[in-house]
């Protein structure tokens, strides 16, 4: 039998494809994320009863919704593997780094898909206008990557410690705080129609790069030990 060694990105893509296939058939994580987002948005919209909210409050509410949506669904990438008993199989047959990048990419795509769904609903239900769509899109992608990256690592941590959900949010929040504060401040400016400073984008991109590299290094210790 003639077999060939696959390049690294193909192995990462195999992990993403597997997670997407399982998610499409179970619809667990995306349903959890979507339902949480819809219920929260509807609750906020009804509470406001048509009142106008400030840009700062809108930005904070938007990112809080995304953060707690992430907390509701992103840990599934590892918790589901552990509950189904497939984590052992994955440890045995998949390279740790491929698992890390595959799961992070899957979580990022899942969160970006949710953001695409939430943002129009946010605009409609909160009767809000967004003047700078392009800048907002960049902020959303950078913020989502940060949340997904940290969540992937903490998901494995809670999965290995058996702490599950409650611990997941507690560990993830402080790690995300710098990105969270910056992205809320920048989103407020965008909602006000003011261009964020270039340094803000650089900070967020730098944060994403730093956590991607740091969590990639830390991941192996959690995966193999």
């Amino acid at each position, binding site marked *: *039998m*003639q*077999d*060939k*060694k*696959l390049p*690294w990105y*193909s*192995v990462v893509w*195999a*992990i993403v*494809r*597997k997670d997407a*296939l*399982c998610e499409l*058939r*179970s619809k667990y994580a995306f349903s959890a994320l979507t339902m949480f987002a819809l219920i929260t948005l509807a609750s906020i919209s009804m509470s406001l009863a048509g009142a106008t909210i400030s840009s700062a409050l809108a930005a904070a509410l938007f990112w809080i919704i995304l953060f707690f949506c992430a907390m509701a669904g992103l840990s599934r990438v590892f918790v589901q593997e552990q509950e*189904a*008993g*497939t984590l*052992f*199989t*994955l*440890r*045995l*047959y*998949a*390279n740790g780094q*491929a698992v890390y990048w595959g799961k992070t990419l899957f979580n990022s795509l899942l969160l970006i898909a949710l953001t695409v769904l939430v943002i129009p609903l946010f605009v409609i239900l909160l009767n809000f206008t967004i003047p700078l769509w392009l800048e907002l899109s960049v902020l959303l992608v950078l913020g989502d990557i940060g949340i997904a990256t940290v969540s992937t690592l903490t998901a494995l941590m809670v999965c290995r410690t058996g702490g599950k959900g409650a611990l997941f949010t507690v560990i993830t929040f402080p790690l995300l705080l710098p990105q969270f504060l910056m992205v809320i401040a920048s989103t407020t400016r965008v909602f006000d129609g003011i261009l964020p400073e270039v340094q803000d984008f650089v900070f967020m991109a730098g944060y994403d790069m730093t956590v991607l590299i740091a969590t990639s290094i830390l991941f192996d210790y959690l995966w*193999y030990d």
Partner: protein
Amino acid sequence: MQGIIVELVNVSKKYGRRQLFVTINRQICPGECIAVTGSNGSGKSTLLKVIAGLIRPSSGTVKVHHNGHEVVADKRMPCFGLISPELIFYNAMTGYENLHFLVRARGVGLSDEQLMHCLESVGLTGRQHELLSTYSTGMRQRLKFALLVALRPPIWLLDEPSSNLDEEGKKLVKRLVDDALAQQATVIIATNDPEEANYAGQKIALV
């Protein structure tokens, strides 16, 4: 990568105060089959996991040599293929999808025909596109062997390999072990079944 030597040097394992096994010293050469026997809870499965590097021994080391050079611990995983009751596949995927994914996860690219050939060799033809949740335990066991046939690892670690298999399945296991040994693979079987233990030329008996 065939022709791997597995060397156990003073390998011991204990959980708390409970000593599972002490100072196991053994060298297993390519083309050799060794059986690890013992009663339930004696540490057979644990020893396989120690050899695979999934569990650290309490003392001693497991060395893996290839062409006279020691394979460092973090490069060993591709050398091993493990069949164990703990090896669970994805219920939301078909047998073929599971095999396709796990082969690619190991970094090996096989064509559809090659994967189908692996499934055919373990008697799963015709059922490969059904969800794993519809598979019997015997069919799942056959799928584990299809994975080994596809990956052809130089070290086969088999924990109760014939469990849940019918007579035909047991013959299949014997044939696959013989084929692996003929290709100079190193085979280690943890078993309580005397028939399986007889596949091996040597034994490690755990108390």
